[in-house]
């Protein structure tokens, strides 16, 4: 029987790449995001490219009071079983601007952490009760250790990481896997101009999407993508705080 999944933040670089990977495998898609016109054009692209039918659901990360209705709509519109939810929406504004302006700080926390928690609370209750399905959230290597240049964004992602750990612990009993994805640099609009697009540490959204799809299939807990970020972050995490605080990272 055909299954469906929800991709929240489907018009982001990683979200669109994930949509293509799953559409090419015949999975039914519910594409969620803020920009309805962009979602429609993604949905049309998947139809022409893979003859894959998908539906579009409007999702505003900051409209917390509408998240419940959003999730119910997703359950209702799923073709076959609703099998999984992927969160890949996010926001990153300049660190210095966020230090100066609390509204920018709050935006990063609310989009990257609060809204993810809000949706995951709903989805986890649904899957726990059904004792099936899976959850996946795209976090960031920035959550592994706070750095002076990016710690507001990083702290929201760190919060998300801890939430996902606890959720994984809780849902293990129900047999519902929870995947934390920690991408390094991905060649999207978010990193354009920050790192050279042809740098060896830069991953294309397609590479990252393939890694994520594989990890979901294998029911992994935490992945770094590309793989070598696990080792880079291991080194960064192991630097003593006394030394770390003096580094400019």
């Amino acid at each position, binding site marked *: 029987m055909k299954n469906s999944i929800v991709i929240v933040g489907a018009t982001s670089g990683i979200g669109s790449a994930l949509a293509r990977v799953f559409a090419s495998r015949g999975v039914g898609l519910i594409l969620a995001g803020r920009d309805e016109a962009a979602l429609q054009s993604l949905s049309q692209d998947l139809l*022409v490219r893979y003859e894959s039918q998908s539906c579009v659901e409007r999702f505003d990360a900051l409209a917390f009071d509408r998240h419940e209705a959003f999730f119910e709509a997703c359950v209702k519109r799923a073709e076959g079983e609703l099998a999984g939810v992927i969160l890949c929406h996010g926001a990153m504004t300049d660190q210095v601007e966020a230090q100066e302006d609390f509204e920018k700080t709050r935006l990063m926390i609310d989009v990257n952490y609060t809204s993810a928690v809000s949706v995951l609370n709903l989805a986890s209750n649904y899957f726990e009760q059904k004792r099936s399905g899976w959850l996946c959230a795209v976090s960031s290597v920035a959550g592994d250790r706070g750095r002076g240049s990016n710690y507001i964004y990083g702290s929201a992602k760190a919060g998300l990481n801890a939430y996902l750990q606890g959720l994984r612990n809780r849902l293990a009993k129900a047999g519902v896997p929870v995947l934390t994805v920690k991408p390094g640099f991905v060649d999207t609009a978010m990193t354009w*101009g920050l790192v050279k697009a042809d740098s060896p540490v830069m991953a294309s959204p397609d590479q990252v999407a393939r890694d994520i799809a594989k990890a979901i299939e294998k029911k992994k807990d935490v992945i770094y993508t590309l793989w070598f970020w696990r080792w880079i972050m291991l080194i960064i995490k192991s630097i003593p705080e006394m030394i770390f605080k003096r580094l400019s990272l």
Partner: protein
Amino acid sequence: MAQGVDATLSGWGQYEQETCSVFRPERRRELVETVQNGDQPNYIARGLGRSYGDSAVNANGGVLLQQRLNRFTGFDPAHGVLECEAGVSLEEIIEAFVRRGYFLPVTPGTKFVTLGGALAADVHGKNHHCDGTIGRFVQSLDLLTAQGEVLTCSPQQNADVFWATIGGMGLTGIILSVRLRLMPIETAYINVDYGKARNLDQALEMFSGDDERYRYSVAWIDCLATNGDLGRSVLMRGNHADVSDLRSESLSRPLVLRPRRKKSMPIHFPNFVLNPYTVQAFNTFYYKRAPQGRRVVDLDSYFYPLDGVTHWNRMYGKRGFVQYQALFGLDNARRGLVEVIEAVSQSRQSSFLAVLKRTGPQGDGMLSFPKEGYTLALDLPNTGQRLTDLLRRLDEIVLKYDGRLYLAKDAAMTADTFAAMYPRLAEFKEVKSRIDPQCRFSSSQARRVGIVDI
């Protein structure tokens, strides 16, 4: 508005590097805003950067990457017409449509080009003698003009802008979306006849003798062989295979292309690797071991042999290379080709991967390259002044025999040479000055060859 980043860019030949302000819009809206209000003096669209020279380079100006504007928007199975954004690559079209029984009506030797780039260069393929260039299969296109308007152009609607844009190297505006007629196929395979020609005369004889029997026709030619062997070639000509041509293992899934294992050129070769001796040895080896007779070959291997090696351009080292593609009319072809091959051979500037092909009648694109005759394409490593001297010598030969050079390959010709080769340049300039009076679209190449004034 899309954010610009200063970067050094070159064409696929990595011949000259220029600093450009590079933008990569993710949405059409950002592209339109940049064209209208961007702070650069002028802009050029860039697809996947496979033109060899400076066609998609804009020194001290803006470059607009189209690769993220790659949505498919529609397909009409009744007429086989695909509608998509211009940043879609030919590889993506192949991936989506070969399994549904359609192939590109025209394809160049690589699938790593965008559709927009293919139209801007009005590319030809191995079927030019039968089918003409890709422009013939375009039902219509949407062009973003300098004023930020979207102009729909076709052979019926805004025809002058259409035929200026087909082959117009991105200088009339930015191609946003395209409606392209695909070609129905029964299998993903080509029935190829391989044949050797001992020299140029024999090759030309084979081409003129029975080329009509083949939809696809091309020859690899040894540009270092001299005297009696001058122009020795391996012809590879074929037609789409029917299901009845396939062997059992392909028969069960006739439209499925097996994924190829990709190799990559990890580093630039040191310059000494390619020298006249190693290239001659390679050419002799290639000629001797070339297959003969009929074989069934999959589309990827027949059309895109080099696509199996990512970054193959690094073979020529950090100095880079130019690709020289000349075309001579039927009357002058033999004399022109002999002189070009002799000049290359005498200069001892190694070229392998030289390709000879018969071309059909000229199309309607004002700056389109192909006309009826023969075209020869060769790679020349960048040897500095020696290369410059050779290129000037070759240009003289091409001009003497009323030939022309291909803008998508060119990296060095002068404005006088270009003007002498393209009689419809004035007509193109008239359209350009009408739809882009402020010259918002320009490239390093356009300034060098005098399509736009500095």
